[in-house]
């Protein structure tokens, strides 16, 4: 057996650490899920405010107009995302596999 150089050994351990961290780090994983959940929740909020733009009548449409300046930056992205939601199954499946 050849002797592994000290420097390489260090590197190997570091890589192993990184591997284990991403494979078993629930903290990072769960944070990512929460972030996804937060985005979904924000999208739903936008839907309740501006469903009108997609043709869904919203009784408070007149009053949510005054929110438009504060939410305008997200509006375009939201419209794109919500239009791309083709199937709720696909959407939910995406939550777990990726």
């Amino acid at each position: 057996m050849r002797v592994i150089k000290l420097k390489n050994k260090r590197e190997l351990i570091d890589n192993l650490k990184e591997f284990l961290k991403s494979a078993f780090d629930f903290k990072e994983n769960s944070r990512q899920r929460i972030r996804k959940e937060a985005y979904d929740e924000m999208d739903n909020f936008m839907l309740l405010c501006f469903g009108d733009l997609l043709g869904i009548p919203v009784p408070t449409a007149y009053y949510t107009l005054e929110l438009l300046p504060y939410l305008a930056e997200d509006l375009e992205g939201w419209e794109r995302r919500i239009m791309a939601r083709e199937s709720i199954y696909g959407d939910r499946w995406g939550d777990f596999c990726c």
Partner: protein
Amino acid sequence: MNKLVFFGGKGGVGKTTASSAYAYHCTEKGEKTLLVSTDPAHSLCDIFERKIGSRITEIKENLYAFEIDPEEESKKYINNIKKNMKDVVSPIIVKEIERQLDAAAVSPGSDESAVFDKLMEIIIDYQKDYDRIIIDTAPTGHTLRLLSLPELLGGWMDKLIEKRKKAMELYEMATREDKKMESIIKKDPVLSKLNERKRKMEKAREILTDGDLVSFVFVLNPEKLPIDETKKAVTTLGKYNIHIKELIINRILPIKTEGKFWENRKKLEDKYMKEIEDVFSNKRLIKIPLIDEDVKMENLKHISKYFEGMN
């Protein structure tokens, strides 16, 4: 009757006549009276034969009138948003938002919200300045919807606030910058706008359901459809805690009628009068006869006599 008096009823039964005559009656007693029309198809201007529009117009001593213009009010609201927007939004998307705002201003539903907002603003702002505020409303369907708005929209506002809070809390969890996020939630302009709107809705509901402040009077004719509609409206308003104590029966035929046609009409009318008295036995009935002239300023004095003895 109370300080705020709403006149409602089916289309064409004489709401504007009754409310104008009652307003006349109040001014004769020396009360400073404001008569407000919420019907987009205004007819106050036709009775008083002069331009009124969306500003307080003096008709005669102590009598003032105002016709709410939904288009003008929603335009004002939209322009206000546009003005505030310039401080918040980058100039690049200003154009895009302006386009959306203009489209929304003409969408159905905007009008009724605009009328509702203006009416509440008038009630809140001018309550102190007038002894009496009389509201000539649009036909029943419109008015029921108008009065149910705070109930309906209040619930929706609660949902919006809840959702926004939840989303922001999730962000907070995801970012770990706890302290910073907490202050962001507190300072969130969206939440503060929503809360402000909710407060206004609650205030409106408080006013409209205050039985010591508001009277709701229904006008009807002694005919089948107006009676049926009044029955339904009384039930519906009861659900929103608005109780009707007075009814005005308008356009009653004279007791003596000549000719077979009018005799038959009178017989029919008697039947409906009896029905009204039976069904609404717990309400005060004010009876106004049919007159042989157009309703104008001059004969309002005559019609207002039928309100005699009413406060």
